[in-house]
């Protein structure tokens, strides 16, 4: 290259450099969106494809369970399958997004069932963002055919997590007290079911009156209290193995204990005359430790999810209020300051809220939530008798029981936003629900 050419090249580069700011000087239009809507996301869930009649039946059943799970959460609406414009094999290869957009589907779930040579089922699905025409997630599971319902819940959990960012809660179970018979001879038995009300089973015979079952946060294990011949006894029950141990006879205990977050310890209160204090017990050694020591009633204790703090109710200030303290009993703080009394605090598994019950001014009761510092108090549900809040493992949904003046107690769920209250179907009257962690 001659010097002249080099100079010419340099000069051109210089010109280009000088001209660059002219085009870049154009500023983007900036728009802040600070308002929006709160409505469920429309999702299309066609039957999962199965080549054989048997596989196709599983495909229909699984898609239905997935759809029901998502809709029941209140965060999704299912698009009517009758309007679907594309089904079967062709969906697996290439969804026609423009057709799904016409139906206002924002998410599309496409799945397939394949029977394996070893007798198991392969269940796979892909979640599509219809507007962006992108796959959001895609997973496959292998399981025995009788487990199809669990796989459906697991698929629903994966979809829920990808779209909301939170862990799902569909692959979980509920233990509760199944109530039958007239008021004078009420039978209260321990029962368990999937969170959607399916697979209901009664776990105890009717000889003992069962109260306040509580789930371990780490295992498929519960504690509950049962009265045999008017004597209260606390049991530890492993749901998977069916093994049942007596934790002890506690004549002066009024609620079953709650587990510590690590599952190795339980916390409870024992009454002594007019007073009541809080204790813990190590489940391996049965060693008991007293946490509070006072001349007031301190009861209904519950750990924070990190195990560092405890919330409980107490009348030490003159009326029944909610308090928090360190796990060793120090630094006691009253956190409820609203009108009236507060009781049975339950710390959310995600740590940001404490649920409680509270009488309303019109003779009803509320289920409410507040932050652990006592701020942000809101009432989520109201009824003649509402009680026993228990959190879904993701801390997004509360279950409780509600009795509308003699109609018999029923189980309900409500989203922590206060919307989407729904009854959970049970074959009998039901009270005292306890939500399991996600199944292993």
């Amino acid at each position: 290259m001659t010097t002249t050419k080099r100079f010419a090249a340099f000069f051109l580069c210089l010109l280009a450099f000088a001209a660059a700011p002219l085009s870049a000087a154009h500023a983007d239009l900036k728009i802040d969106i600070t308002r929006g809507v709160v409505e469920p996301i429309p999702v299309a869930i066609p039957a999962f494809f199965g080549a054989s009649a048997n596989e196709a039946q599983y495909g229909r059943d699984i898609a239905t369970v997935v759809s029901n799970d998502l809709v029941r959460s209140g965060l999704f609406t299912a698009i009517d399958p009758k309007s679907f414009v594309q089904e079967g094999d062709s969906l697996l290869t290439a969804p026609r997004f423009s057709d799904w957009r016409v139906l206002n589907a924002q998410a599309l779930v496409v799945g397939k069932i394949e029977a394996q040579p070893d007798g198991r089922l392969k269940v796979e699905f892909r979640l599509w963002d219809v507007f962006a025409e992108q796959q959001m997630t895609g997973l496959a599971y292998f399981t025995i055919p009788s487990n199809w319902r669990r796989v459906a819940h697991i698929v629903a959990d994966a979809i829920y997590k990808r779209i909301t960012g939170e862990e799902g809660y569909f692959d979980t179970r509920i233990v509760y007290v199944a109530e039958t018979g007239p008021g004078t001879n009420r039978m209260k038995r321990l029962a368990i079911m999937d969170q959607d009300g399916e697979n209901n089973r009664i776990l105890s015979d009717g000889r003992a009156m069962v109260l306040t079952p509580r789930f371990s946060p780490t295992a498929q294990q519960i504690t509950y209290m049962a009265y045999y011949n008017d004597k209260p006894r606390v049991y530890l029950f492993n749901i998977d193995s069916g093994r049942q141990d007596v934790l002890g006879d506690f004549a002066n205990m009024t609620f079953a204990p709650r587990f510590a977050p690590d599952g190795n310890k339980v916390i409870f209160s024992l009454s002594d005359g007019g007073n009541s204090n809080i204790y813990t017990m190590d489940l391996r050694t049965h060693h008991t430790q007293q946490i509070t020591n006072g001349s007031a009633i301190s009861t209904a204790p519950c750990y924070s999810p990190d195990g560092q703090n405890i919330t409980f109710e107490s009348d030490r200030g003159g009326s029944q209020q909610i308090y928090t303290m360190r796990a060793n009993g120090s630094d006691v703080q009253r956190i409820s300051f609203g009108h009236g009394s507060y009781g049975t605090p339950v710390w959310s598994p995600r740590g940001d809220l404490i649920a409680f019950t509270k009488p309303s001014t019109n003779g009803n009761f509320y289920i409410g939530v507040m932050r652990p510092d006592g701020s942000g108090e809101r009432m989520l549900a109201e009824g003649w008798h509402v009680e026993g809040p228990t959190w879904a493992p993701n801390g997004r949904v509360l279950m409780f029981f509600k009795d509308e003046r003699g109609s018999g107690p029923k189980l309900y769920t409500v989203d922590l936003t206060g919307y989407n209250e729904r009854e959970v179907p049970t074959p009998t009257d039901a009270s005292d629900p306890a939500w399991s962690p996600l199944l292993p």
Partner: protein
Amino acid sequence: MIRATVTDDSMKNSLAVSAALHILLLLFLYFGLPHLFTPLPSHHEPVPFEIVEIADLTNTRVEKPEEPKPPAPPPTPAPKVQAAPAPPKVEEKIEAVPLPKPAEKPKPPEETKPKQDSFSKLLKDVSKLKPQETAKPTDEKTDAKEQPQEAKTMAPALSNRLTISEEDMLRRQISQCWNMPIGARDAQNLTVEIIIDVNQDRTVQHAEIVDQSRMVTDSFFRAAADAARRALYNPKCSPLALPPDKYEEWKRIDFTFDPRDAL
């Protein structure tokens, strides 16, 4: 040979001087002569003229409330009861296997912003809101979909920039399509920035989420960013409510979805 080198060197020197002087000249031509001792005259922004343009448009429009979506009816599976206490069965552990990803478009990144306490006002409190049963749009300004033609000013434009009314129209249109992440953990910290390229027919050509790194590490942010992007791609909000004659001004738009000030 030596002479030739000397000539070459002197040639290079003069070329360098010439180039430097040319650059200087170009810079003077481009930026003007420097004002070293006298203060620059104050620069007047053309903002006041925009306010005049607003008079050509009206913010008052017929409100077409969105149909509230009824919550889907709860499924009513027929629960089975087993009369005898059945021993609970140990269920098989089910492992997830990730499926290979099909070829797809690259995802644009997003940016999130924190929310404040006022956000919690969106949440329901049955002790205060007796009659409200279903989730309602949080934006009272749930106008009907903006007709882009309305955005067109009839008077000759004094400046080509979008007027405040035109920006507001776009803002309100997108607000109707944005499903806010209420109820999520730390929802007030989920502010998302998305830059879009817009086709001349006012449809979104490409939407890019700015904060790509948080998309990978924060599942809550990723969910919020996807939701914000869905607002921009939503057919309900297409074409965008923009004045067709100002394409140069809106061919690239920087959106920030910030739920902090909701209500």
